[in-house]
């Protein structure tokens, strides 16, 4: 008897993306189980960011389907997908530079903030308590990341590593069930990377599912429960870190073949 598999949180089914004549992704399928950290790796141009963009609704699928918690999300507008619990960060950090760190994180919380336009204009209790709750939640997130003291700093004034962490805090403020991270450790020093690793592992404890693109192999192999390898738009391997590490296709994709 095979025990019934629990339903995966994210299902990528036969996804393809064609830009003009170029196939950026072709027939890619994999599942991310609930509560897992899934590493998405591959050489530059393999289609990793394209895939993450499609999951968050920023790029249309040419073929296939993406399901979250068993429900079709491909084809929905980005804000609808965010509402369903998908948060993300960007490879080229996209914070709101004019706003303070705190405001950036509060923005991530806005979906859970009560108070209509009229209530806000009349400064009614519900909008004021909503504002207070968002502020408290945002400060709490910043405190967890050890960034409380930067709350009122303009986001663009932060260091690269700090900006990446604020972006993660902003995505977490959304209260996502799935977090998509596009090279979160890029530009971080090794101490910062270690800190980030620990933080992400602690998130898994709180049953968050993470799909992470990263070039830092050490980090991926250390953190991931599952690694998916893309090369030229095709999935070439999938499995636990130790399995993927020794897969000949993967070694070839990264180092070139011996011939």
């Amino acid at each position, binding site marked *: 008897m095979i025990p019934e598999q629990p339903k995966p949180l994210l299902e990528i089914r036969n996804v393809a993306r064609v830009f003009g004549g170029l196939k950026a992704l072709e027939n890619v399928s994999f599942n991310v189980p609930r509560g897992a950290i899934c590493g998405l790796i591959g050489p530059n141009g393999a289609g990793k960011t394209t895939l993450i963009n499609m999951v*968050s*609704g*920023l790029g249309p699928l040419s073929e296939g389907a993406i399901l979250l918690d068993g429900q079709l999300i491909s084809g929905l*507008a*980005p*804000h609808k*997908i*965010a*509402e369903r619990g998908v*948060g*993300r960060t*960007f490879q080229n950090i*996209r*914070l*709101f*530079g*004019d*706003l303070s760190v705190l*405001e950036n994180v*509060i*923005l*991530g919380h*806005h*979906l859970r*903030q009560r*108070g209509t*336009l009229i209530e*806000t*204009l009349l*400064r009614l209790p519900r*909008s004021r308590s*909503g*504002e207070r709750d*968002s502020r408290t939640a945002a400060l709490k997130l910043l405190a967890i990341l050890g960034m409380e003291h930067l709350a009122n700093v303009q986001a663009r004034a932060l260091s690269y590593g700090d900006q990446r962490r604020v972006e993660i805090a*902003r*995505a977490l403020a*959304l209260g996502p069930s799935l977090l998509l991270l596009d090279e979160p450790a890029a530009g971080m020093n090794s101490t910062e990377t270690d800190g980030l690793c620990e933080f992400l592992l602690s998130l898994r404890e709180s049953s968050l599912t993470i799909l992470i693109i990263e070039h830092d192999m050490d980090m991926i192999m250390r953190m991931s429960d599952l690694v998916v390898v893309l090369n030229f738009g095709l999935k070439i391997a999938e499995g636990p870190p130790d399995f993927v590490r020794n897969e000949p296709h993967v070694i070839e994709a990264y180092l070139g073949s011996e011939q």
Partner: protein
Amino acid sequence: MLEFVSNNISTINFILINIALGLSIYITLATGLLSLSNAGFMAIGAYTVAIISTQSNIPFIVGLMAAIALGVALALPIGMLVLGLRDIYLAIATLGFGEIVRIIALNGDKVVHLFSQNKELIIFNGAEGITLTYRTPTIMLGLPDTTWPILIYVIVIVYILATLHNSRFGRILASIRQDETAASTLGVNVVHYKLLAFVLGSAIAAGAGALSAPIVRVIDPHNYVFSRGVDILAYAVLGGMTHWVGPILGATVLTSLPEALRFLKDQRDIVNGLIIMLSIIYLPAGLADPRIWGLFKRLVSFPKRERVS
């Protein structure tokens, strides 16, 4: 003080109207939308009040409400049509709307005559426009009763914008201005909030137009041409587009400047254009730039620091 006010009441009226207009374009600019339809919505407001007060005895306040309601009713469908456009394309489309309004005001009576039996009926009165009968304003608490509604209107708008600025809504609009893709991945319905900003701005402009009608008295299409839209844009650009204080400063400076420099009057458009150019180049964040205020504070506190040392 009171004497200064009564001697310059016309300038003060126009400063207040222009502040309202500057704030009407500010709300869209703060959302990252370059919409130039404000002069058109101003015309809609002014004509609504002018037509209602020449064709009936309905009180002004009802005319004002009707003007704002009409502004909202028109801004909704137009916003839905044009807000898919970006940057310069949006500017051109909204400019086109302003021109349509102006042409309707110019030729509206011909259309009215097509549908009406009364060929003598004059509503828009073409290029001559509508002249409102002059009524000597009564002074209430030191201000004419034509100025009070405008002052109250500006205060209400400032309250609304200041409240929004510090709320979820203000943050969301700012996030759309800075990066609408990132905003959408946080669950912001970008189209919805752009429409909100556009409708709000249009309603404010229509109300400002309605309030300007008793002041200018002659409501003709020439009042609402392209350069009016550019004037409105200049208030926000000179003053600054990231805080509601900006358009207030910009409108005050640009409205009082020609009065102070009367000899420049014919060249006002040139000066306006120059000011926009120079402020974009040297003051991209406008007069309300936090850096300028920081500098100002430092200069003011300078003697104090010397005394300490």
